[in-house]
C-alpha cells in the first residue's frame, strides 16, 4: 500500500538531501553542481553579504573517511594561495553531520564548454599556459592534482583561469604546519596529522582520475610512484583536447609534438616540469622553435624569412631600384 505518491517521495528525498545550514552563517540559494565526493551549492554568507560556493559531502560515510578526505581537500586548497586556485573561506561540519567547506563562488565556463567558434587557438593556448603556471605552483608546494581534465578547469567571467576539484590531490611533501593550524576549530580533527592512513595515502592499486586524461602509471594504480609527470600527462591530454576541437587548419606539427611529448607513455620522455611545458607553448606562441619538435632546414629558413620579412622586402626593393638605376646609367 502506497501512502505517498512517487512525486512526494522524490520531493522528500530532494529536501532531505539539502544541507542543514542552521547554526552557520550561510543561507542556501541553490544547487550549483556536483563533484566527485560532494554537491556544490550556491549560498549566501549572511555576515559578509556575498555569495560563496559550499561543497557538502553527500555520499554515505559511516566510517567518516570521506569527511576527512573532503576536509583534507579544503586544507590542501588553503595551502595553495594562487590566483589560479579557488580560495577557501571556511570548513567544518554541518548540523546534520555532513562535512563541508566554503570557497569563492566562481561564475564562468568550464574549459570543455568553451565555444570553439569564439576562442581562437591563440586564446586557448594562453589559457593553457595559465593552467600550466597554476599546476606548476602546486607542484612547487608538493601537491599533485591527479585529476586534471577540461571539466575541472573554469574560465571566469573576467578571463581568470581556475584549476578546480582538488579532491584526489596527493601531497608529495607535508604542507606547512601553519596551513594545518589555520584550519577552523571544527576541523582540527581533519588536519593531516589525524588522517587515517587509508585516506591520507591512497592505497596502492587504487585508480583515481579520469579515463583519457590519466597517465598510464595512474591507470595501473601505481599510486606510490606517481610524481608530477602524471599531471604533465594530463596537461598534454588537455592541450590535445584544446586544439583538436578547432578546425584541422589550426593544428600544427609543433603543437602535436608538444602534446605527444607531454603524453609520452614512458614518463622519462615527458617534460620534466609544467614550466618546461608552458615554456614550449610560449615559444610556439612567439613563433620560435619548440623543444619537442626538431625543425628541418626548410622550416628554419621559413621561420627566419617570416621573422625578418620587412628587412628582406627592403633588400629586394633596394636591389630592384639599384638595377633600375644601372639601366638608367647605361641609357
Amino acid at each position, binding site marked *: 500500500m502506497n501512502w505517498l505518491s512517487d512525486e512526494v517521495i522524490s520531493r522528500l528525498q530532494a529536501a532531505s538531501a539539502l544541507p542543514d545550514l542552521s547554526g552557520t552563517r550561510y543561507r542556501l540559494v541553490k544547487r550549483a553542481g556536483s563533484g566527485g565526493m560532494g554537491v556544490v551549492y550556491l549560498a549566501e554568507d549572511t555576515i559578509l553579504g556575498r555569495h560563496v560556493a559550499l561543497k557538502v559531502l553527500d555520499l554515505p560515510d559511516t566510517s567518516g573517511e570521506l569527511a576527512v578526505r573532503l576536509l583534507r581537500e579544503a586544507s590542501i586548497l588553503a595551502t595553495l594561495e594562487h590566483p589560479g586556485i579557488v580560495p577557501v573561506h571556511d570548513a567544518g561540519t554541518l548540523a546534520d553531520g555532513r562535512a563541508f567547506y566554503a570557497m569563492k563562488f566562481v561564475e564562468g565556463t568550464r574549459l570543455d564548454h568553451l565555444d570553439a567558434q569564439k576562442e581562437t587557438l591563440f586564446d586557448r593556448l*594562453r589559457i593553457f599556459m595559465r593552467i600550466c603556471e597554476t599546476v606548476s605552483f602546486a607542484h612547487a608546494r608538493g601537491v599533485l592534482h591527479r585529476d586534471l581534465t577540461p571539466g575541472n578547469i573554469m574560465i571566469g567571467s573576467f578571463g581568470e583561469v581556475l584549476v578546480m576539484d582538488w579532491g584526489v590531490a596527493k601531497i608529495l611533501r607535508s604542507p606547512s604546519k601553519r596551513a594545518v593550524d589555520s584550519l577552523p576549530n571544527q576541523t582540527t580533527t581533519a588536519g593531516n596529522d589525524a588522517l587515517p592512513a587509508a585516506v591520507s595515502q591512497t592505497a596502492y592499486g587504487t585508480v583515481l582520475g579520469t579515463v583519457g586524461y590519466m597517465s598510464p602509471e595512474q591507470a595501473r594504480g601505481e599510486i606510490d610512484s606517481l610524481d608530477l609527470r602524471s599531471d604533465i600527462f594530463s596537461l598534454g591530454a588537455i592541450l590535445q583536447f584544446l586544439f583538436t576541437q578547432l578546425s584541422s587548419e589550426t593544428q600544427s606539427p609543433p603543437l602535436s609534438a608538444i602534446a605527444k611529448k607531454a603524453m609520452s607513455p614512458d614518463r622519462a620522455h615527458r617534460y620534466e616540469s609544467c614550466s618546461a611545458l608552458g615554456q614550449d607553448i*610560449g615559444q610556439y606562441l*612567439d613563433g620560435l622553435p619548440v623543444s619537442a619538435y626538431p625543425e628541418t632546414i626548410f622550416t628554419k629558413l621559413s621561420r627566419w624569412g617570416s621573422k625578418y620579412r*620587412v*628587412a628582406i622586402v*627592403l*633588400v629586394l626593393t*633596394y636591389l630592384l631600384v*639599384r638595377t633600375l638605376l644601372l639601366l638608367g*646609367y647605361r641609357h
Partner: protein
Amino acid sequence: MNKVVYGLILGGVLGIFDGLTSWFTPEVRPQLLMIVVGSTIKGILAGVLIGFFARKVHSLALGILFGLGVGLLLAFFVAHMQGKYYREIMLPGGLVGLIVGYATQKHQQFSTPARS
C-alpha cells in the same frame, strides 16, 4: 635584436650589394674587392648611426630623413675621394640610408617577452 645591431646588419648587407653592383661598370671592375669592402664599411657605419638615432628618436619621418642624410653624406665623402661618379655613388648610398632609416624605425625591439 636591438635597433643598432639591426641597423648594422642591414647596412652591412646593403653595403655588400652596393659594392657588388660596381661589377656592372667595366672600368672599375678591377677594384671590385676594394669597392665591396669600402661600401660594406660605409653601410655598417651608416647602419650604426641610424640605429642609434632610431633608439633615441621614435619618428618614422625623422628616421627616414636622418637615414637619407647619413647615406648621402657618407656617399659624398667616398665620391669626393674619387673626384667623380658622384651620381653613381651618392644615389645608391642615399637609398641605403633611406631603407635602413625606415627599417630601424619599424623594427620592434623587445627587452621582455611579448606575452604577459
